[in-house]
């Protein structure tokens, strides 16, 4: 709501006076982030549509955002915790699992949403131009609302177990951003691939499952042998989840090496994703 008139005028100007050149080949890597900025209102409206539509005609609406992680947390606490007796870094099982499920579920939903977003918007893509990168960006952003809602439950859980966050909590936005960028990077790749090969949508559920076991959701990363840590960190979600637990509760270690490896992996993922997406973008309307 807070966009001022002047900002819009600034955005409108380059559109109005510009000369658009249409060619068979666009410059490789002409990542037009300026254009994405010019279309930020559209990003906003796509996010807003996604959120509005998501819970229309559902009975309990946004409560789903809470129920899903809570139920999963209960199941994990019972089977992995109480029965399998997986070590939990001295944390109560509900906190141990919920603090991991929170970023994990955001990531998994955002990644799946972004993968399907191009195909879902097939009609729009074949009828009108806008920078296509708006779609996965909006998709990844719209998951943040559910994330925020289920975050409230975490605060309640922590209050219940009388766990006070340490100063490390300032790192939380960093790990959230890392989760967002990971989802975006993977989403860019998969949504572009999905537009061409519908095989992708069958692959994604498995990918999510395998990826979860490759991330310390159900177990602490301390179970991973020291010498494999660097490799393990190539999975950015490993640092995100370890980071969440550490930032919120102060238990576990700060994910030093993990974070370095993960950041490198995310930068590579997002950058290569943008390049591939851009390459497919021009003919997306023909193949989707």
């Amino acid at each position: 709501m807070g966009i001022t008139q002047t900002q819009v005028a600034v955005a409108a100007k380059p559109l109005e006076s510009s000369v658009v050149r249409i060619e068979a080949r666009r410059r490789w890597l002409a990542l037009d982030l300026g254009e994405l900025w010019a279309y930020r209102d559209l990003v906003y409206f796509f996010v807003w549509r996604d959120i509005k539509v998501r819970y229309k005609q559902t009975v309990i609406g946004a409560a789903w955002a809470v129920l899903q992680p809570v139920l999963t947390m209960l199941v994990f606490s019972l089977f992995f915790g109480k029965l399998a007796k997986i070590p939990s870094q001295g944390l109560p099982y509900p906190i141990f699992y919920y603090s991991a499920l929170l970023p994990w579920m955001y990531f998994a939903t955002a990644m799946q949403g972004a993968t399907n977003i191009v195909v879902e918007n097939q009609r729009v893509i074949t009828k009108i131009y806008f920078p296509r990168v708006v779609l996965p960006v909006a998709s990844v952003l719209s998951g943040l609302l559910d994330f925020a809602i289920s975050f409230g439950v975490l605060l309640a859980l922590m209050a219940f177990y009388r766990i006070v966050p340490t100063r490390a909590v300032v790192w939380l936005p960093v790990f959230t951003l890392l989760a967002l960028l990971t989802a975006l990077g993977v989403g860019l790749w998969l949504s572009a691939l999905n537009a061409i090969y519908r095989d992708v949508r069958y692959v994604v559920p498995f990918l999510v499952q395998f990826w979860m076991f490759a991330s310390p959701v159900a177990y602490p990363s301390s179970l991973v042998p020291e010498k494999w840590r660097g490799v393990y960190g190539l999975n950015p979600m490993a640092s995100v989840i370890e980071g969440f637990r550490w930032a919120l509760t102060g238990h576990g270690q700060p994910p030093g090496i993990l974070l370095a490896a993960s950041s490198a992996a995310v930068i590579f993922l997002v950058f290569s994703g943008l390049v591939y997406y851009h390459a497919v973008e021009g003919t997306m309307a023909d193949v989707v």
Partner: protein
Amino acid sequence: MSNAAIHVDSLGKRYRIGARARYHTMRDRLAHALATPSRWFGSNPTEASGAGPTHFWALRNVSFALEEGGVLGLIGRNGAGKTTLLKILSRVTQPTEGSAEIRGRVGSLLEVGTGFHPELTGRENTYLNGAILGMGKKEIERKFDDIVAFAEVADFIDTPLKHYSTGMQMRLAFAVAAHFEPQILLVDEVLAVGDLSFQKKCLAKMGEVAHGGRTIVFVTHQMNQIRRLCEKVIWMDGGTIRQAGPTAEVVGAYEAAMASGTASGNTDRGEKVRFLSWEIVDPPNESPHTLTVIGPVTVRFSLRVSQYICRVTHGITLYNMDRQLIWGWAKYNLQLEPGIHSFTYTFPMLPLRPGAYAWMVSLFEDGELLDMWDCLPEMNIATEDYQHQKDEWSGFLNIPSEFSIEDDCDRNVVQVRPASSGGMDD
């Protein structure tokens, strides 16, 4: 280059046959990748190999310039490349070769209501659709009241779109687009739908736009619209420009070609027999392909037979624009002498919902195809709409009905009446 608003230079677009209908599977692509590894990473799946039998040029060697404020009409049969050209100019897809330069803010209207979501209200959809067209939030806010007034949906603006009739959706969609105010407007055949009075209103609005110095490229099958709005016309045929020039000249040539059947048609055309043209003979109309009454209707298909044929089956079908079969019929065991023949059909009524329809006529001899013709131009039904306002209660047919409530005691009609008035029926 001068300062033309649109400058198109030998534009071409190659498609893979069936690429739209059937997406590739990873297996196909991997198999192909083994043969040409360098292309696997390529951006353009349509370029995997040259223009072999699996590819075709939807557009080739198209060049033209349109000065600022010019209004250009694009005509031609279906598949002539008109929409492909608009898609490239509006940047929906990129060309395979050539280039184009566009000066100014482009608004494209390849479809009305792009991005409309049935669950969202009229208000929400207005914002969404406006943003998709390229308007900022402030701009939409400023124009919102005008849009709603133009669309005549003020009472329903906070109702979910799924409860709107098709007509109302169309009106809202067009209203948003009409208020976009681009410097260059690209319009595909979007006015063929919707009721007649709103079509007129849209045309008036477009005329306003046209005379307001805006550059417009306009695709339609309706020649009277072209005549009214355009100064220049390009006739597209088989992906290339067949003729370009002043409206009267090009439209005249196009209509003449249509009538004599020399426009290249679909590929299953016969040698022994060939359908040439079709028209609505009765009732006579300004355009012989537009129907403004429900019936009776007489339609005539003419064909040329070059040698005697017997045991002929003649089939006829009518499709709507979603390619749904509306009606089909066949006549068996015909014999035809060489010469020009006409098949005439008289229908007591053609109660079809307004819109564009396509006839298809065919001839078979002993089960072997002699000729099959997707009749061009399409039949445009522009009758009044006698349907339910809500989309879910309106169907394919447009049947006028008379309704009355009878209050007839003699027929012992069961009626609800106050108990005190008893004693009338014995």
